[in-house]
Structures are given as structure tokens and as C-alpha cells.
């Protein structure tokens, strides 16, 4: 199981690194989908099968495909890809890399001083029971959030007068 975890972690890291450095948005998004599928495997090896199914079905399957459809509606041409390549080629990466490396070093230092703990498989049944008993108010709030997103997207997406 640990070998599968490390292999999936490697796939997730490489795919994410490729996703944020592509010049073509569709290529970048497909790399990100690969990263999400690897993340689903990671969730499964960590004892969270329900989260693994959600990751593949909801995130990679629904949210990312919505993203992909909208990008295809944008109809970016070859000139856009060339312009994008010129943006990436410039040394814009230097300062962000320094800042992110600094933040990463700080956080890694915090994580290295933790103690290992016990683990077990958390079944979908436990998740469902907890979700619809003690966390019911949060479910209602989540539905309100989705409604707000729906109304907002509908309002912004109207044809302008």
C-alpha cells in the first residue's frame, strides 16, 4: 500500500508541476485531471474510499469537465498560445519561487516535528451518519452556498442589454 501511495504522490506532483507550466490551457487542465486521479488513489490508500470516489466522480468528472468545456468555448487560437509562451518564458518565476520556497521551508519545519499516529479505514457509512446528524446545519449552509453560486452565475451570464 505504501508503494502505491508513493507512486501516486509522484504522479500527482509531476502532473501538477506540468499543469501550472503549460502554455495551452487545455493541456494544463488535462494534466490537472491526471493529478486529481492520482489524488483519488492516494485517498483510497489512506483509508478514505468515499473521498476517493468523490474525488474522481465529482472533482475530476464534473467540476474539471465543466472547466474544460468553458475553455473550449473560449476558442483560444494559435496566437494566444504563442503570447502565452512569451509570458511564461520571461523570468516571472524567480520571485514567486523564492517566496514559495521560503513558505515551504517554514511549513516543512513545522510538519517534521509531529508524532506519527494510528490510522484506520473510515467507511462511507460513518461519513454519512456524521454528515446527516451532527453536521446537518453545515449541509444546509453548503446548499445555500451552491444556490448563491447558481444565482450569481445565472445573473452574470445573462446577455448584456
Amino acid at each position: 500500500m505504501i508503494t502505491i501511495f508513493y507512486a501516486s504522490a509522484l504522479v500527482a506532483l509531476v502532473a501538477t508541476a506540468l499543469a501550472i507550466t503549460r502554455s495551452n490551457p487545455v493541456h494544463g487542465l488535462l494534466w490537472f485531471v491526471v493529478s486529481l486521479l492520482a489524488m483519488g488513489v492516494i485517498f483510497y490508500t489512506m483509508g478514505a474510499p468515499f473521498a476517493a470516489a468523490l474525488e474522481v466522480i465529482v472533482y475530476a468528472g464534473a467540476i474539471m469537465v465543466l472547466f474544460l468545456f468553458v475553455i473550449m468555448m473560449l476558442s483560444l487560437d494559435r496566437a494566444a498560445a504563442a503570447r502565452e509562451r512569451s509570458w511564461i518564458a520571461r523570468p516571472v518565476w524567480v520571485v514567486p519561487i523564492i517566496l514559495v520556497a521560503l513558505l515551504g521551508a517554514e511549513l516543512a519545519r513545522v510538519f517534521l516535528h509531529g508524532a506519527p499516529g494510528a490510522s484506520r479505514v473510515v467507511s462511507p457509512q460513518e461519513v454519512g451518519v456524521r454528515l446527516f446528524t451532527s453536521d446537518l446545519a453545515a449541509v444546509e449552509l453548503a446548499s445555500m452556498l451552491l444556490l448563491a453560486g447558481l444565482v450569481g452565475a445565472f445573473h452574470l451570464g445573462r446577455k448584456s442589454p
Partner: protein
Amino acid sequence: MIPWPMPTGLALVLFLLGLLGLLARKNLVFVLMSIEIMLNAAGLLFISAGLRWGDPDGQIMLIFVFNLAGAELALGLVLLLRLRARQPALDSDDANLLRDAP
């Protein structure tokens, strides 16, 4: 089983990759995607914490993170489409006026 610092560290690295993309890229499609990467890394952190304590709350929080990501992405993509209708390049530098250019 997997020791919990491993997925926690992975979540950290993925979050920083997302942050790097957010800081360095100018194309708004990639900015949105970097936000998704960071949200997903936060979800992995929740799952990792759930593994540490053997508790279903981590997976419940992941569901709410997905919920948030879906709502955020719907609004972000609509804004992207509106912006695209007005200017040819999805450059974040060109979208700093929030109104028609004078």
C-alpha cells in the same frame, strides 16, 4: 498503513505549487486552475488529518471543500467568459479597471 506526515507533506507541496502558479501566471485560466490546485491540497490536508485521528470529519470537510470549489469555479468561469467577450487576451493585467476602459 501510511504514516500521516507523508500525505500532509504532499498536501503542503501541492498547495505551494498552486500558490506558485497563482503568483507567476498571468493567464486567468491558469490562475483559476491554481486556485483549484490549492483547494484540492487543502482537501488532502483534511483527509490526512482524518487519517491521523481515525475520524470521518476529514471526509466531511472534503465534501464541503468540493462544494466551495464548485461554487467558486462556476462564478469564476462566468466572469472569465464575460471578460473574454470584452478583450481578446485573458490577461490579468488588462482586467484591472472593473469597468470599460476610458
